[in-house]
């Protein structure tokens, strides 16, 4: 995994770790929305690639959110 891949995973995890603490069951949806709002398409493409290669280290919420964002 390249340095920037690691960073992307870390960023997704950090976002998820905030939304996990919020009330309700919107953690995945909110994480996905945050990524959509702030990440540029090339970062999303890179994440898609990581998912395709069974990237390790993604938190389950971050993983679900990443899947949702990259599915589009």
């Amino acid at each position: 995994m390249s340095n920037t891949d690691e960073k992307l995973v870390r960023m997704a995890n950090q976002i998820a770790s905030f939304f996990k603490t919020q009330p309700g069951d919107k953690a995945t949806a909110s994480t996905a929305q945050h990524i959509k709002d702030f990440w540029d398409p090339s970062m999303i493409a890179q994440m898609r690639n990581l998912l395709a290669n069974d990237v390790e280290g993604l938190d389950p919420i971050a993983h679900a959110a990443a899947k949702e964002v990259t599915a589009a």
Partner: protein
Amino acid sequence: MKDFIIPTSMDDITNDRDMGTPASKSLEMVTLTIDGFEVTVPAGTSVMRASNEAGIEVPKLCATDSLEAFGSCRLCVVEIEGRRGTPASCTTPVAEGMVVNTHTDKIKKIRKGVMELYISDHPLDCLTCAANGDCELQDMAGAVGLRDVRYEGTENHFEVRQNGEVNPKYIPKDDSNPYFAYDPAKCIVCSRCVRACEETQGTFALTIEGSGFNSRVSFGAKSDDALHSDCVSCGACVAACPTATLTEKSVIELGTPERSVITTCAYCGVGCSFKAELNGDEVVRMTPWKHGKANRGHSCVKGRFAYGYASHSDRILSPMIRDSIDQPWREVSYEEAIDFTSKKLRDIQAKHGQKSIGGITSSRCTNEETYLVQKMIRAVFGNNNTDTCARVCHSPTGYGLKTTFGTSAGTQDFDSVEDTDVVIVIGANPTDGHPVFASRLRKRLRQGAELIVIDPRRIDLLETPHMGKGHHLPLRPGTNVAILSAISHVIVTEGLHDEAFIRERCDWDEFSEYAAFISDERHSPEAMQLLTGVDAQALREAARAFARGGNGAIYYGLGVTEHSQGSTTVMAIANLAMMTGNIGRRGVGVNPLRGQNNVQGACDMGSFPHELPGYRHVSDDATRDIFEDLWGVTLDAEPGLRIPNMLDAAVDGTFKGIYIQGEDILQSDPDTHHVAAGLAAMDCVIVQDLFLNETANYAHVFLPGSTFLEKDGTFTNAERRINRVREVMKPKNGYADWQVTMLLANAMGANWTYTHPSQIMDEIAATTPGFANVTYEMLEERGSVQWPCNDNAPDGTPIMHIDGFVRGKGQFIITEYIATDERTGPRFPLLLTTGRILSQYNVGAQTRRTDNVVWHDEDLLEIHPQDAENRGIKDGDFVKLASRQGETSLRATITDRVSPGVVYTTFHHPDTQANVITTDFSDWATNCPEYKVTAVQVSQSNGPTDWQKDYNEQAAQSRRILPAAE
């Protein structure tokens, strides 16, 4: 400069007349008669000021309208019918029906006598005096008709030798301060300087020593000259001095100025208004403008004195290009440079795609310039790869306040602090970072407001002379959220929250959910103590003081935002303000202290990759429509790259060209190695700046920038105030920055036709709702205005969220503390945090090129005595500072301002390269870098590290400029 005798209202911004005493804020009006004229003024006004309102100027020496009346010179005496004697008009308040005579024979005689005494102890060298023509003593001698001095003092203070003997009363001139001189021979001991230092600046550096004829002004007992005293060189005493005793050295050298232009300081986010005083196009001095609403006639050493960089010989005045960064620079014409650049950028796009280039806007440039840069990127480059250095400082403010309140700006104006009863200052060091605001805050602290400082360091504000109660919560760096949660825990569990406010202004169910969360025992100060290092009892007291203390205001700085939980901390601050009902009126609020002069403006103007001007997301069709119609292009609906992502993409080979206006990302952004690698991987780096900055070492094109003295435009300060910047002199480099951007955009096919920045403001107003009613004409008339300024708020908005939050109901957010990934361990046991000092600014490119270096010529590492002793480090030793990222070396200074386990440094000097040390961890929401926490080790060292040596070598290589071709 003579004053005019015309009646004025107190907010007439075209008039700088000294009214003698401060304006009264009373709403009750009083009518009296002065020399037969009836005049109506607010109760509490002095007779002197009332006369001035009536157009009658009473002679005065010790009074000036920036200071409380003192009543020592007795020149301003008047007669009042029905009262005995001759009261001083400056210290006598008006009363209903009062009948005042300012000019009777008796009074004339007294005044002449007073002046005679003064002049008998004053040298008569007016013709060669620096204050000639700008001296109140001279004016008053004229005003009272003094023609001869009957008695010669047996003793005086101004002759070096008297009767052939050394005069023991003579004190030689003190030239130690680089910017102003103190010549005691000319002092009339009116104590205006002493009072200015106390009342206006709040430093108390000056005192009057001795009494009667022997009283002298002194820079404190502990030192003998100005430079080594407590003086911070704000210049308030110099402005207040009626004689040549305290005078700017520039005036001594260049003569009294003949014209002036009102403009705005380009240093910090306070945004002080200044009068640039000139002879021809040479700046003689900058004096704080009394009608400036941010600074109210005050200034700090940077804005007042540190403008010399504008004419420094290091400034690059012609464009330069090179094919690769190992070559020396080649000076070329603008035409050639722009042609070279535009072709290169278009080539890159042809090869690597439309999104392979981008740009960075500047928080130092004007709103108009920033707007144009993002417009060029979006409309001409055709992508959203725009970002700004605000990313590295206040992006969490934007995110956090937008989420909680609905708009991402500070809620107050600076005047609001006058009504604050208890203030929290967290992660900010106002006396150094925002000095004029600090002076205004200190004034309030002296009046008894309570202070709570949450900071790893014992900042100077805590040592405000004559302040009321102060609390210091010295937390471990990185635990802001934990501390704020503990404070909220105390407030909620002790029932100190403002239920009425919450029910009315917020969602009660949401609050209840929050209250349940925060009441959990794990947030109690006792439970948090181990983590934060803050004494639980001290925290409880501070929390109670804030909740119960009346108007509570919170001011914060980069110590809040530059953390992995920066956005969460901002939301925790908003929670705290809402639960205590401290929003929507004077004296309260959430106040981000912005670092650079136009950080607020850079954010407002759409510098971020996901937001068009006015904080509207690029995916919003309606907003894109507005700009697409006006600009005649199709805009990308997806966010672009942020600075760290641009650098990542560069390293990965997909991002190849960048236009950087007025920023030095190599020095200011975290993890210098990574920034350098990113820049080195690009094919075209364009730097537009005043000097060959550090980033320029990696640039292929250098476009010369212009200073704030050389352009028209606007800056928006931390209180959302749009201030005019005015061209004082023509750009030495030929063009203002907005013109250079326009040259490049047009070379890439833009067809822009702006001829003046006012047209750019018109475009901003036409497209951005918060700016809808802003025009240059309006700013001309009012001086400044705070956005939003539109049909709903035609006079602008000094205080936000008055009747309700912008988003409707204020939102409480759950703020769980999550520790940063940056941890101390056996190899790196200390925590480094960074900050700034008063005399230097940001990466120091400007201030290092002024005499301000006498106060700070290198970055120092502050370390606690205990940590120093464990490592065998002595004060002044060269030490190695190492983190997981890299290492650098600098000198240590030993102090208990920092707690054991914490070290602190500034980042003003490129030699230090503090950011070689910092990590690339960042805020979860905005990627604002985590500057404020780095695990480090400190050890003895012999000198610069290898990196510093390599770096200096590369820099020297890269800065070579070929001699211009004949």
